[in-house]
C-alpha cells in the first residue's frame, strides 16, 4: 500500500441524513420524519473493515442501504473514490454499483429460488457483459473461491444449508471484483458453528481481493473479530467510533460500555453488571439533548437539553458530555 492510498479513503460519508416521512391524514401530508440516519460522517480506507454496531432500529441497515443508493438520503454526501454517489446519473451509477456490493442477512430471501447456482453467481458478470451467459468455468471458479463444491453449480438454493447459501451470496458479491462490500448481519441467521466459518471466509477474501468491508451487526463480539475500526450507533447517530481495540478495551460512551457488558462471556464472571433501564425510544420522536439520556446510567442535567458535540482523542471520536 503506497502512501497515497493510505491517505485517501475509498469511501467518505459526510453528514448523511436519511429520513423517512410519516404521512398522516387523507391528504397524506408529512407529519414528521423517522430520522433513521441523522447526520452521520465516517470514512473507510482500502482493505479496512469498519464494524457498524447498534440495536434494532438504530439505523445501521438504512445506512448500509443508503450507501448503495437503495434508499434516497435527504442530505449529505457519499464520496466513493472522491466522487459523490448521490450526484451520479443512471448510467454512471450503474458503473459504480459494480464496485460496491452487498450481502444480506437471510440468504434464502436474497437468492432467487428459481435460478440455479450457476446463474446466480454469474448474473452480475453477464449483466455487465463481462462474460456470455451459462459460463461454467467462471461459476466453478467462484464456487471454489468460497469453499463450495464445484460440481453443485446446477443445484438450486433450497438444496443448500444456511451456511452454504450464505457462501453462494458471497460468491455472487465478489464476482465483479468489487472494492467495497457492505455486509448486513451476514451471520445472524446462521448456527454458531457455521458463523465462524463465514467470518473466516470473509477474512480470507479481504486479503485475496483487497476488499474493504462495512460490517453491520447487532453483536459487538462478532464485529470485534473482524473489524479494524468500530462505529457504535444509537437512534440514528454515531455515539462513538475508533480503532476496534480501543473501543473494546476501553469503551468511553456509556452506551458502548453497556453493549460490551451485555455480551455473555463464557468463563468470565463479571464484576459489575450494567443493566440499562427502560427501552430505546422510537426514532420518530427521539428525546431532546443526547438521545441516550433516558437510559444512561451516568446522565447529567446538561444531557437532557443539549446535544453533545464530538470530542476527539487520538483516533477516537465520542459524542458524550462526560468528555467535554
Amino acid at each position: 500500500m503506497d502512501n497515497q492510498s493510505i491517505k485517501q479513503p475509498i469511501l467518505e460519508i459526510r453528514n448523511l441524513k436519511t429520513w423517512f416521512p410519516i404521512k398522516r391524514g387523507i391528504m397524506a401530508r408529512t407529519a414528521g420524519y423517522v430520522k433513521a440516519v441523522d447526520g452521520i460522517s465516517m470514512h473507510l480506507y482500502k482493505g479496512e473493515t469498519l464494524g457498524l454496531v447498534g440495536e434494532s432500529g438504530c439505523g445501521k441497515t438504512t445506512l448500509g442501504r443508503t450507501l448503495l443508493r437503495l434508499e434516497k438520503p435527504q442530505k449529505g454526501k457519499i464520496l466513493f473514490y472522491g466522487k459523490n454517489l448521490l450526484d451520479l446519473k443512471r448510467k454512471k451509477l450503474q458503473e459504480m454499483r459494480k464496485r460496491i456490493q452487498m450481502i444480506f442477512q437471510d440468504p434464502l430471501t436474497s437468492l432467487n429460488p428459481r435460478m440455479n447456482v450457476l446463474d446466480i453467481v454469474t448474473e452480475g458478470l453477464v449483466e455487465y457483459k463481462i462474460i456470455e451467459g451459462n459460463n461454467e468455468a467462471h461459476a466453478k471458479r467462484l464456487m471454489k473461491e468460497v469453499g463450495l463444491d464445484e460440481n453443485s453449480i446446477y443445484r438450486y438454493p433450497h438444496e443448500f444449508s444456511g451456511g452454504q447459501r450464505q457462501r453462494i451470496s458471497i460468491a455472487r458479491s465478489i464476482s465483479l471484483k468489487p472494492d467495497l462490500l457492505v455486509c448486513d448481519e451476514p451471520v445472524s441467521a446462521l448456527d454458531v458453528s457455521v458463523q465462524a466459518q463465514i467470518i473466516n471466509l470473509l477474512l480470507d477474501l479481504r486479503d485475496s481481493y483487497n476488499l474493504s468491508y462495512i460490517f453491520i451487526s447487532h453483536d459487538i463480539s462478532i464485529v470485534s473479530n473482524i473489524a479494524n475500526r468500530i462505529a457504535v450507533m444509537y437512534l440514528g447517530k454515531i455515539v462513538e467510533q475508533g480503532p476496534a481495540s480501543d473501543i473494546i478495551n476501553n469503551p468511553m460512551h456509556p452506551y458502548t460500555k453497556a453493549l460490551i457488558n451485555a455480551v455473555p462471556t463464557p468463563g468470565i464472571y463479571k464484576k459489575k453488571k450494567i443493566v440499562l433501564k427502560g427501552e430505546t425510544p422510537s426514532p420518530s420522536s427521539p428525546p431532546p439533548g443526547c438521545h441516550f439520556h433516558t437510559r444512561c446510567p451516568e446522565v447529567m442535567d446538561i444531557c437532557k437539553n443539549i446535544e453533545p458535540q464530538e470530542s476527539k482523542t487520538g483516533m477516537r471520536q465520542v459524542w458524550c458530555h462526560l468528555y467535554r
Partner: protein
Amino acid sequence: MSKKLLEIDKLTVSFETDEGVFKAVDDVSFHVKNNETVGLVGESGCGKSVTALSILRLIPSPAGRIEKGRIIFGGKDLLKLDIREMKEIRGNAISMIFQEPAAALSPLHKIGQQMIEGLMLHKNISKKTAWNIAESWLKKVSIPDAGERMFSYPYQLSGGMQQRVIIAMALMLTPDLVIADEPTTALDVTTQAQVFELIKELRQSHTSILLITHDIGVIWEMCDRAVVMYASRIAEEGNINDIFSKPAHPYTKGLLKSVPKLSTETERLMPIHGYVPSPFNYPSGCYFRDRCPQAFDRCKKETPRLVDLGNGHKTACFLV
C-alpha cells in the same frame, strides 16, 4: 436441591414428513432438580425445542409422535395423563415462555384479559381478584403505568415489554417448573440483559427453570447445569464449571471455540468443520463423526452411550 423435579427417561420423538419419518429426539434422558436452572443447548434442528414441547405434550399431532420414553414430573408420568389432567399441569405446575412474544400473545385481546384467563382457570378466584393479582405482577416485571397497560393491546407494547408480560404470566401462577424456549433470542442485547436480571430476581426459591437456547454464552450467565444436544441426541451433560472448564465431547469443545468472543484484534476463529447433517441422512455410529477432528474407526460402527465421568458430568464419546 437434590430432589428430582422432572425426569426425562429415554424420550424418542419422531416426525412424519413427505420425505419420510425422522427422529427429532433420539433416546434422550436428563433431569431437572428442585430450585435448579438447567440449560438445554444446541444448534437449530438438534431437537431441543421438540424435547421441551414434549414435556407439555404440545408436539403437533399427527405429524409428530412420542415413540417411547417417560416424562416423570411430581411422581407422575406426563405421557400417561389424559387431556383433562394435562390441562391442570399446563400453566399451573409447568409454564412456558416462548421465543417470539408477539406470537405468544393474542393480538385481539387486551393484556389484562389474557393475564387473568389462566389465573381464573387454575385458582378459582373472582375476576376482580385475578385482575388485581395480574396488575401487581405487571408492576413486578417493571412495566410502567401497569394499571393502564392492563388495557393495552400487545401491539402497543415493544418486544421487550411483551416478553415481560409473558414472563409475568408464566410466573404468576407460581409454577414448579418454567420452560423458557429461547426467551431472549428475538430481543436486543441490552433488553436481553434486562430480561435475564428479571428472571433471576423473580425466581421463587422453589421454581426450577429449563432454559432452551442456542447461545452457549447465555447458558454460562443463567444456568447451574447444561445439557448439550447434537443431532437429536445428548452429546454432553454436566454442571456449568465442568462443561466450560473441561468439556469432554469434541462437539462441546468445538462449540466453545467457535463462539466469537470480544476480541481486540481480528483473528481467525476456530469453526467446526462442515455442517449439521440433515435428519434424513445422519451418518452411522456417532452423528458427529463427519465433523469431528478426532473421529476414528469405532465412531463409524457404534453409537456412543453416555458415560459418567463423575460428579454428574456425562458424555457420549468413545474418547473418554
